[in-house]
């Protein structure tokens, strides 16, 4: 009966058990390597999932307009061509364009919110009623900003669900008054809870006021005589009219900004899928980057395995000589030592996967960030550790297999 796999594994285990501490330390290198691959990939995948989830939350037919050209990931104004602010007057011109259902200009600023003795900091967004058309079903109760509120520059506010907790201790705030930037506002509605946006950023503290009120009282967003807006969100009539709306918006803005033929845009118009693919590519770059760092530690672990296997081959030269004397062929010895390395790296790999998954679950549970252990990352880590076993085991095993029986037997 030729030397088979189970006998090889048995003899490998016996050899590894002969030096328990040494085998354990060698395996630790693989455990750490595989564990960090699994844990760091889960961070990357988790970031990817939360970014994707966050962006799809915004709505599928939404087109976003920014000032400044951001096509090549250059910050606005920094070598990315001219920058011109988007003005509130221009926004009115965009309404009613082909394929456009609703236009929601936004003015954002960071403000301090006070109620009695409590205070908190929140993103305050000045909006028009169309915000609710672009982002439907986000109001929990009360009412949203109305057209009359915008016309009258009313001091009314719709607060995020987090604000209810932070300022009102969970009591219904509708009808109460809070101070924003020292000015009294009446709470008219509460937004629904939307969940953490990942990376510690919460969308639930975002608070909404009429855009005219925001421009008049909360932000210094006057450029010259024109009132500029931060972003404009446009909702396309339906998914088929996204391209029509994109083209119409670009053409209109180029005309308004007096951009000649061949000149680059001083604004950016992005559809939801553009933003999604840009963000996903950033997140997957992050995942690859984290995985590569972890991969380095796995390679270091593999070198440790190779080092120990070389020592083991030298120590067991006489055993190899004896095995050859009683009839072991070259490949019998090769498989024997290769099996030993594989057992080391696969057992180490499995332990590493368990530890990596445990770390990732713990991080997720602690709420620092979302992590997702994907089956692909486990398969990758397992395959990688087995490949390391073969790659780094081959040289020592080959060296053992190539020994001359008579010289090996006489080795002192």
């Amino acid at each position, binding site marked *: *009966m030729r*030397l088979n796999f189970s006998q090889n594994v048995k003899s490998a285990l*016996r050899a590894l058990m002969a030096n328990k501490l040494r085998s354990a330390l060698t395996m630790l290198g693989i455990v750490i390597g595989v564990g960090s691959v699994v844990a760091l990939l889960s961070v990357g995948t988790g970031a990817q999932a939360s970014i994707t989830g966050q962006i799809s939350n915004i709505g599928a037919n939404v087109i976003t307009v920014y000032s400044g050209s951001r096509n090549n990931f250059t910050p606005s104004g920094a070598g990315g061509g001219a920058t011109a602010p988007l003005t509130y007057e221009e926004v009115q011109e965009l309404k009613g364009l082909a394929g456009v259902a609703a236009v929601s200009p936004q003015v954002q600023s960071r403000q301090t919110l006070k109620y009695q003795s409590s205070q908190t900091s929140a993103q305050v967004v000045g909006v028009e009623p169309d915000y609710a058309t672009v982002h439907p079903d986000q109001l929990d109760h009360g009412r949203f900003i109305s057209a009359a509120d915008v016309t009258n520059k009313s001091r009314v506010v719709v607060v995020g669900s987090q604000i209810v907790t932070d300022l009102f201790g969970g009591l219904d705030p509708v009808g109460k008054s809070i101070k924003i930037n020292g000015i009294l506002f009446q709470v008219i509605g509460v937004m629904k809870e939307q969940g953490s946006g990942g990376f510690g950023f919460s969308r639930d503290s975002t608070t909404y006021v009429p855009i005219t009120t925001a421009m008049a009282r909360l932000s210094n967003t006057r450029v010259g005589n024109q009132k500029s807006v931060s972003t404009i969100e446009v909702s396309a009539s339906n998914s088929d009219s996204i391209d029509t709306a994109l083209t119409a918006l670009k053409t209109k803005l180029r005309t308004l900004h007096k951009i000649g033929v061949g000149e680059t845009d001083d604004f950016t118009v992005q559809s939801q899928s553009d933003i999604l693919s840009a963000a996903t590519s950033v997140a997957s770059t992050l995942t690859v980057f984290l995985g590569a760092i972890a991969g380095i530690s796995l390679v270091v672990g593999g070198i440790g395995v190779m080092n120990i296997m070389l020592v083991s081959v030298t120590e067991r030269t006489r*055993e190899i000589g*004896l095995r050859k*004397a*009683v*009839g072991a*062929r*070259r490949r019998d010895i090769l498989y024997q030592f290769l099996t030993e390395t594989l057992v080391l790296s696969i057992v180490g790999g499995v332990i590493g996967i368990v530890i990596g998954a445990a770390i990732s679950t713990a991080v997720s549970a602690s709420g620092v960030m979302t992590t997702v252990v994907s089956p692909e990352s486990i398969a990758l880590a397992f395959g990688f550790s087995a490949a390391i076993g073969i790659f780094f085991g081959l040289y020592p095993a080959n060296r053992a297999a190539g020994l001359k029986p008579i010289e090996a037997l006489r080795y002192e």
Partner: protein
Amino acid sequence: MIEIENITKVYQMGETEVRALDGVSLKIEDGEWVAITGPSGSGKSTLMAILGCLDSPTSGAYKLDGIDVAKMRDDQLAAVRNKKIGFVFQQFNLLSRTSAVENVALPLLYASGNHQRDRATAALAAVGLSDRLGHRPNELSGGQQQRVAIARALVTEPSIVLADEPTGNLDSKTGKEIMALFDELHRTRGITVIFVTHDPAIAANAQRVIHIQDGMIA
């Protein structure tokens, strides 16, 4: 039957050539008991390595049971060793942390055939160690360890047993017991026994003594 014809073995030691064997011709019939003696450095160990198919001669012919083995590749030689030759060494060369019966079964791992454990058990019985199957080498005396090694040499039922100073690490009383065991195996099984030794008392057991000096039969 072993027939070697004008065997030479040359080692290259840096600049100088060392002729360990210089034209040795020899014929050993089936069932003979031969002792190879000679001072250290005479080439007797080299001759033993070549007779045992552990090494190939630089030139010359070697026929083992009519098969030319002088030009065989390493893996073919491994198969020949497995089938036809059993080895017994001065240092026993047993695998530590491995039971007696598993040590004896080792050559069977590299051979075809079933009932490995049964065959190993039978071989241990033939050397009088039926009650030591599960013992590890460090739980056995020197004489018992050498008996395990002899059982390992016998387990594939080879036609030749090559022993290199098999009593060298044993006290004289145990040595005599081991020699008696070889004598019994030789008589009852008709195995060809080849001893390499520098001890004239051990060599005296043999039917024929071949003395090697300076790489040649003296």
